[in-house]
């Protein structure tokens, strides 16, 4: 068992109103620069819909994520190492700017500078890339609130996979919003695909980053991420991605998207996991087993054995305590209402979702029944194929039973709390139906509905003393341990120095010519 800690997120989709505050604050913080005009580290898309970039979930086309080869070994879907190097000159799986959208701005100056005349001056859209006049025909959430859905939504890859036809007439369909950031996967395909080794997963908190000094612009990460959450900055020619706001996380604060979320639906907390078990979990043959396999990788932070192993792995006491209080662990592991997005991509994503009950409630109301009656809802959850199958396609590799179980819990929680507060009764039958204890149910209610700030975000600050210790020992090689492969005087300090990423390099090529 090799214990590692990961900062993870859960989003409660029922509460998302699609206001895009998260996207906008994220953009203002991270991507309000030239070269990343079209980039949204956080985007919110309407489902059903084709998403951003268009049809990114169609892995037959983009070859993102992992798959098992004939002998059951895990391989990048885009092909083996040699094949990827051969594709360096032209990556056949890379989306075009038009698959995202052409960003536009307006010539606002005309409003002020237009000569006096009989007409009010108007502004025209200009391409933010070329500066030319353009017609705006697509955007990061063009299909907002199902706008244009009859025309575009049938192209949603999740619908294509469903047996039944989904009607897109506005009054007969269902919809919800799906906010997405980088998943900071346990088995990140982007990192595995990076030819220059510039992308890495941080050991301390699992955040996946791009080293801007080492990225050479091979753009393999962009196509290999099945969630399309790495982007090319077309000005610098380098890859950029969601950073999980690491400077804020290090300071013990939630990410910008979470902090500003109007629906207060995001949860951030630690997950302790067994790094040695990751590969095995990603390799289970049936994609429907991936959810349970990933749950098995997570360690119970209250288990004394795990605590001891975490201490041995150098995880500090405040981090262990934070892991024990983690809302993410509670939602994913104790109440089991949070599910990963597209587990079938085999990257073991670490941003999980509580599937929305609203499509089911909409359907119940649409059928003329009372959506407040748990019996009606339970019925709908088991009978209604369409929203259920769709949600299962997103969150459980098509296993409708898993999604149905979660939705039952959510609707049981509503009915249970209604009985508690309105009638003053304890609905034992509901508890039994979903297999939860009364205390548990009320805790879950508190976390999901009251959602206090300090319960939603349990983020321990990073340890500066680690950094200090690191720079102090940086004069030596990390491989110089007893019997380590670096046990030699092979690199005399006069000629070599420590590079920015901690590797050793010729001093001639190291800035400051020095260490640390």
């Amino acid at each position: 068992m090799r214990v590692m800690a990961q900062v993870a997120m859960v989003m409660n989709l029922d509460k998302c109103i699609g206001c895009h505050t998260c996207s906008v604050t994220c953009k203002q913080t991270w991507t309000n620069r030239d070269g990343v005009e079209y980039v949204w580290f956080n985007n919110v898309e309407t489902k059903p819909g084709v998403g951003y970039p268009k049809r990114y979930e169609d892995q037959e086309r983009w070859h993102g994520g992992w798959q098992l080869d004939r002998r059951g070994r895990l391989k990048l879907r885009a092909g083996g190492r040699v094949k990827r190097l051969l594709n360096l000159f032209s990556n056949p799986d890379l989306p075009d700017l038009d698959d995202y959208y052409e960003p536009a701005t307006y010539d606002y100056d005309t409003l002020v500078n237009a000569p006096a005349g009989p007409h009010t001056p108007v502004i025209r859209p200009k391409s933010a890339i070329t500066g030319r006049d353009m017609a705006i025909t697509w955007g990061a959430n063009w299909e907002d609130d199902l706008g244009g859905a009859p025309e575009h939504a049938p192209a949603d890859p999740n619908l294509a996979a469903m047996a039944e036809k989904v009607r897109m007439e506005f009054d007969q369909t269902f919809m919800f919003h799906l906010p997405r950031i980088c998943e900071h996967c346990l088995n990140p395909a982007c990192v595995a695909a990076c030819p220059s080794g510039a992308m890495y997963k941080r050991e301390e908190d699992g955040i996946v980053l791009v080293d801007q000094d080492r990225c050479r612009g091979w753009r393999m990460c962009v196509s290999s991420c099945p969630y399309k959450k790495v982007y090319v900055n077309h000005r610098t020619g380098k890859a950029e991605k969601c950073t999980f706001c690491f400077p804020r996380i290090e300071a013990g604060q939630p990410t910008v998207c979470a902090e500003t979320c109007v629906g207060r639906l995001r949860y951030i907390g630690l997950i302790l996991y067994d790094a040695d078990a990751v590969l095995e979990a990603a390799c289970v043959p049936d994609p429907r087993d991936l959810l349970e396999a990933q749950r098995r990788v997570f360690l119970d932070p209250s288990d004394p054995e795990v605590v001891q192993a975490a201490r041995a792995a150098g995880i500090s006491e405040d981090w262990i305590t934070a892991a024990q209080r983690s809302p993410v662990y509670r939602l994913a592991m104790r109440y089991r209402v949070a599910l990963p997005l597209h587990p079938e991509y085999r990257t073991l994503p670490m941003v999980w979702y509580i599937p929305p009950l609203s499509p089911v409630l909409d359907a119940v109301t649409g059928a003329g029944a009372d959506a407040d009656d748990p019996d009606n809802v339970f019925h709908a959850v088991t009978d209604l194929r369409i929203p259920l199958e769709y949600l299962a396609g997103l969150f459980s590799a098509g296993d409708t039973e898993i999604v149905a179980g979660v939705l039952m819990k959510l609707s049981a929680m509503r009915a249970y709390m209604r009985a508690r507060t309105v009638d003053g009764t304890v609905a034992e039958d509901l508890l039994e139906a979903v297999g939860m204890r009364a205390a548990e149910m009320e805790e879950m209610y508190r976390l999901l509905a009251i959602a206090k700030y300090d319960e939603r975000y349990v983020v321990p600050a990073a340890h500066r003393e680690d950094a200090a210790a690191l720079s102090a020992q940086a004069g030596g090689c990390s491989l110089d341990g007893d019997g380590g492969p670096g046990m030699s005087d092979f690199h005399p300090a006069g000629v070599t120095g420590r590079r920015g990423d901690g590797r050793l390099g010729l001093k001639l090529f190291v800035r400051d010519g020095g260490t640390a």
Partner: protein
Amino acid sequence: MNVALWVVVPYIALTIFVVGHVWRWRVDQFGWTTRTTQVLESRLLRLGSPLFHLGAFAAIGGHVLGLLVPKSLTAAVGVDEHLYHLVSVSAGTVAGLMVVAGLGLLLARRLTSPRVRRTTTRADKVLFAVLAVTIALGLSATVGENLLGGGYDYRATIAVWFRGVLTFHPDPGLMAGVPPLFRLHALSAWVLTAIWPFTRLVHVWSAPLAYLWRPYVVYRRRTPIHRSRHV
């Protein structure tokens, strides 16, 4: 004059090449990239880029063979003058045409796609001009002198001079009777050498061969903040 062109110019170019690379690596790793524009335009790139790169590999391989390997060595392994000529001219012509076609497509893309055009820097423009001239001269030398003309044995003169430059025993006299196309090609190649470290060509040294054996997922410890940029 001979000394200036065939001794001074090469050494100035080589000095800039070496010092320039060290400088660039030390101060500008952030700018050390292929500067990919595939997201902006992929239709012409899909054909042009592989053509150009594979052609360039072949051409570089040919130059290594022609310039660095002495005639006596190829003769010793049983390659006579006729065979060498046959192989080098045919392969050289094919490689040259690939490079020209590839570069042509890439240049057309720079000019016709407004998106790509906007990202083109001054360094890019200089680089494309020098590359185009060097390649055009090289190909016309191969085609003009060796395919259509009587053939010129550059291995007796240019190659010996070039190895002399590399081993610090340059003999400019060897270049005296060389046909003008070859001389111009050599000179433009030195210009290319000199601007190399300041252009996107530096990505050549970052060919990611280590990818073939490194583990898939890279873990790194959080390093002291002031070192590298993470975005």
